[in-house]
């Protein structure tokens, strides 16, 4: 097959075959993976659950991993990472994503408002090391908060489909019951499997306490012998880590940060650090253009006009926020090509040079 594609690409050179096929149908591509949204469900407040049918390149995910999807909003393609919430044993190769609409989240809001069956999105292969080991541990604790529930949901469903016989505690914190996606299903799972304990706590309602050692000890007295998977907002992450470190159980705690990309306060101030991850250099941000700062750091990035017209200096910004010195526009999207000569960092930035 690959041989044949190569041959056909000799004919379509210099354009890859996909650039022809996608014009016929966006899901018709040979190399580039995409997915079509087949179902849209808005059950929990503020979130939307999408079922996606990926194109044939999809290799599946391991419960806990994330995928990157790309959608076009006002002409611009934006990409974001979400964890599939379905069991990784799902037979029909579909994936299910639950997206919480964050107040300033461009993509999450867009999907929450506009996703409809038939819409096609870009899809990147599943990635991430936050997942269950193939050799399942005897005891598992899943602690999540807010939209951090998604990878744990996939883990719990996977364990359910494979008839896992060990003990599981699924501990989830949220604002109130309506905000918990897949709540009824979680409760049903707990009823079907008496080795699963599902606990949903709502400290903000005043009915429950915040995470603490005592709480954990009450729900899963065996937690010290379990493997724990943690994903949630910074406050929860910190509280759990403190407990595990005090118990010297840090090596049994696996966590995934979920970072929201929000533009920092004042774009004009020069704060933070610039990391040039390609060359392993880190410097203090002085507020000058990234090209000038890279040169001061002793790097020699390619450049031409130094005035934003030739695009020679384009490099990939891995993370962080930058400000366009010509337009004043601020950009906080990860993994974006930017022009070094007319962009200055706002806060911490990682550039792949």
């Amino acid at each position, binding site marked *: 097959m690959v041989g044949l594609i190569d041959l056909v690409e000799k*004919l379509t050179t*210099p354009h890859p075959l996909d650039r022809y096929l996608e014009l016929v149908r966006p899901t018709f591509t040979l190399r580039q993976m995409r997915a079509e949204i087949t179902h849209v469900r808005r059950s929990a407040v503020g979130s939307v659950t999408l079922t996606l049918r990926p194109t044939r390149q999809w290799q599946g995910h391991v419960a806990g991993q994330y995928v990157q999807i790309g959608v076009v909003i006002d*002409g*611009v393609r934006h990409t974001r990472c979400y964890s599939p919430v379905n069991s990784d044993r799902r037979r029909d190769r579909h994936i299910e994503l639950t997206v919480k609409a964050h107040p300033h989240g461009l993509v999450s809001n867009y999907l929450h408002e506009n996703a409809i069956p038939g819409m096609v999105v870009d899809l990147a292969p599943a990635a991430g090391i936050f997942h269950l080991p193939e050799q399942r541990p005897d005891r598992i604790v899943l602690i999540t908060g807010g939209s951090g529930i998604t990878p744990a949901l996939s883990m719990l469903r996977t364990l359910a489909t494979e008839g896992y016989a060990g003990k599981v505690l699924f501990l989830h914190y949220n604002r109130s019951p309506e905000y918990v996606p897949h709540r009824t299903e979680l409760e049903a799972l707990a009823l079907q499997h008496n080795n699963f304990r599902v606990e949903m706590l709502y400290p903000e309602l005043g009915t429950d306490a915040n995470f603490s050692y005592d709480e954990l000890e009450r729900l899963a007295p065996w937690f010290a012998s379990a493997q724990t998977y943690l994903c949630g907002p910074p406050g929860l992450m910190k509280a759990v880590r403190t407990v595990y470190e005090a118990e010297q159980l840090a090596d049994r705690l696996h966590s995934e940060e979920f970072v929201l990309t929000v533009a920092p306060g004042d774009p004009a101030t020069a704060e933070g650090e610039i990391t040039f991850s390609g060359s392993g250099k880190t410097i203090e941000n002085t507020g000058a253009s990234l090209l000038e700062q890279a040169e001061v750091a002793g790097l020699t990035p390619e450049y*031409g006009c130094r005035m934003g017209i030739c695009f020679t200096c384009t490099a990939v910004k891995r993370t962080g926020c930058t400000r366009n010195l010509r337009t004043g526009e601020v950009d906080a999207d990860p993994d974006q090509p930017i022009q070094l000569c007319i962009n200055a960092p706002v806060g911490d930035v990682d550039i792949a040079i």
Partner: protein
Amino acid sequence: MAMLTETPAGPVVLSREQIEEIGAALDEIRARVTDDLGERDREYIYSIIKAQRGFEIAGRGLMYLGFLPPFWLAGVAALSVSKILDNMEIGHNVMHGQYDWMREPGLNSRVFEWDTVCPSDQWRHSHNYMHHTYTNIHGMDRDIGYGILRVDEAQPWNPLRLGNPVYAFFLMLAFEWGVMGHDLEVENIVQGKRKWLDVKALLKGQIRKAGRQVLKDYVVFPALTGPLFLSTLAGNFTANIVRNLWTFSIIFCGHFPSGVQTFSEEDCAEETQGEWYVRQMLGSANIDGSRLFHIMSGNLSHQIEHHLFPDLPANRYPEIAPEVKALCEKHGLPYNTGSFSQQIGSVWAKLFKLALPPVLAGKPQPAGVIVVRRGQDSEVGV
């Protein structure tokens, strides 16, 4: 030919304040367009891509009926249109970064390749950087004559220049190969200013890219039509030539008609943004035409707007052209435009005239615009 700006009182003089005012006005136009970029521009470029792919497939398909002359001709026409669209409205503009904001991997300036023998990375260096940064500065912008032609009085005359129109004619026929060789700076190698070793990597890239193009047009596609091998080969060859004639003509109309000014390195040292804008306007020329004509020329018929804003999507140039023109009129600056026949006629007239030694060619034209830079008048050549 008279300078468009020549007044009875002599050339137009642009003061510092005027230059800053022009700069601010142009910045504002730019900001307005960047703010407005969105779905419309996306739809535009994809509609052009769709059309180009359609013409390409039609052209290749018609070659199977190439034994019938009308079909052969239709095939050549379709393929020529495809190559012209690919090179101009798509390739040239995408590689200027005009659509980078869309964040579409297939339309990113750093990775895009086009259907011509010149590797895109080399073209981006000689064109996007050298030509667009140093537009019409002698000794910096190698597009002034491409190292072969005499297109400006400030280039010294020697007997070899007598062949000027002949060289131009051959460059026109083989234009894509000329574009490919541009970044090598062959004349600098001949003069010993550049070593062969420096260009080894460039040559390697050219052989790779050109090899693929040649293989596709002159071996694989002809072979696929079996007994029609020669007819398809001839068709593909003709389409490449048609594309060359067209791109050469449009591009030469952008900077070489009469009334376009050139500059010295000295003038342009420590240029302000406003001065840079003024140089771009004085150094470029437009062509009037219909919407279809503009699309087929990659909107390089709006060369002035393109040089002011090389990274704004080309479909925006017609929209902003009236404003740029009004700005020129306000300050008495030339807005060099004319019909295609006028502009191309003027280009060839110049190519012939500058073949002759200055004594026969007559006096060079006086400066049309004098730009006051850093408090000093700087004469700009014609």
